[in-house]
């Protein structure tokens, strides 16, 4: 049986090797890893992989785990179609 990949970010299909390579190349924050690899930019917006990436950052750099967890959060929290965002911006008010 062929050995399967170990995925860290399943939404964007980013493997553990790719994350470690990014950290070794100097990306030691969630945002930096995200910009290089797209980990955390998918459907779940990092809900699943944020903690895993932070664990890898703390294992492969001198940044402690709690510091590594501090990433930026942006709206929308969760997937949302652009059409719906436009609705709200236009002010569909209740």
């Amino acid at each position: 049986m062929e050995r399967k990949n170990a995925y860290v970010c399943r939404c964007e299909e980013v493997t553990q090797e790719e994350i470690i390579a990014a950290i070794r190349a100097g990306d030691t924050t969630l945002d930096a890893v995200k910009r290089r690899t797209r980990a955390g930019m998918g459907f779940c917006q990092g809900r699943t992989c944020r903690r895993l990436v932070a664990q890898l950052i703390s294992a492969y750099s001198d940044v402690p785990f709690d510091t590594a967890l501090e990433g930026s959060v942006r709206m929308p929290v969760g997937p949302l179609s652009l059409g719906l965002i436009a609705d709200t911006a236009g002010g569909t008010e209740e």
Partner: protein
Amino acid sequence: MKTYDVIVVGAGPAGLGAAIESGKAGASVLLADENDQPGGQLFKQIHKFFGSHDHYAGTRGFQIGQQLLEEAARAHVEIRLSTRVWGIFEDGTVSACTEDESFRCRGTWLILATGATENSLVFPGNTLPGVITAGAAQTMVNLRHVRPGSRAVVVGSGNVGLIVSYQLLQAGMDVAAILEAAPQVTGYAVHAGKVRRAGVPVLCSHTVLEARGERELEEVVVAQVDGQFRLIPGTEEVIQADTLCISVGLTPRWELAALCGCKMDFCGPLGGRLPLHSETLETTCPHVLVAGDLSGIEEASTALDEGRLAGVHAAAALGLLSTAESAEREREIQSRIAALRQGAFGRKRQTSKEQIWSRYHQHQGGGL
């Protein structure tokens, strides 16, 4: 724009408790949840809770949920399901969407009770069909009445892992083993005893190395680890299974709290990153309260009472309860929560909570 006295995000036990208490006092309350059913994790719990009568001992989780829904209806809470809160703007407006509409509304008080996310693990094959989280297994077995497979390996011997193992057995599956990386079981002895008596081996100092299969899970490679969680070479073993159930802890869902601008804190024993908060669930943002797993991973009963406390706090601040009434109500709830934070496991949570409260007061410049 529609305005409410209180907007509660998340209709798990914490959110229901908050909505009920503020609604009962006369506040107009919107309770939004992205799920199509209210109750959060409660409706997945088919087992009886233990503890005291005040904590619904002997009642099954989903029945507690049913009682809470009835209470919420009597308190005139507006419950909106399949409604995800996706943003909170600087002016305090809350944006939420359903499948086909997005709307904005405003609340004088915002109570966040967004619960937690299940932690995952990285190993080769971790996306093979058959590899699922404990929560997913519970949803399948207890809510949808489908078996995820026929033979499972469970990773993690905390309460969730132990309870889910037992529920998989009840659903007619085999549980080949429970793996625990620590040298001893991490959940309650009663739960561990139950699965052991049912013949399930709990393999301590063991972890999962790899999930294998052509198109779906066929076997799990496990191995022993030492006291530093380092792999002991040569201890690999293969276990046949079509289901691998991951139950390695929960992380608070703090995204909305962070968007509000709440100061964040870190507490390992309570699940990691979470919003800094006080004994009465205030955050560093005025008019934003938190409750339940979001303010530290505990249990359904604590989540419910934290929610009630937040609801009372908001109702009192809105002038809907007299000082004496709210003080009396708070005392009652606080004493129940204190009782829940006793015993070996409870004490640890109590100490962690106290550290957070004290950091909250330091941050607010008050000292305790």
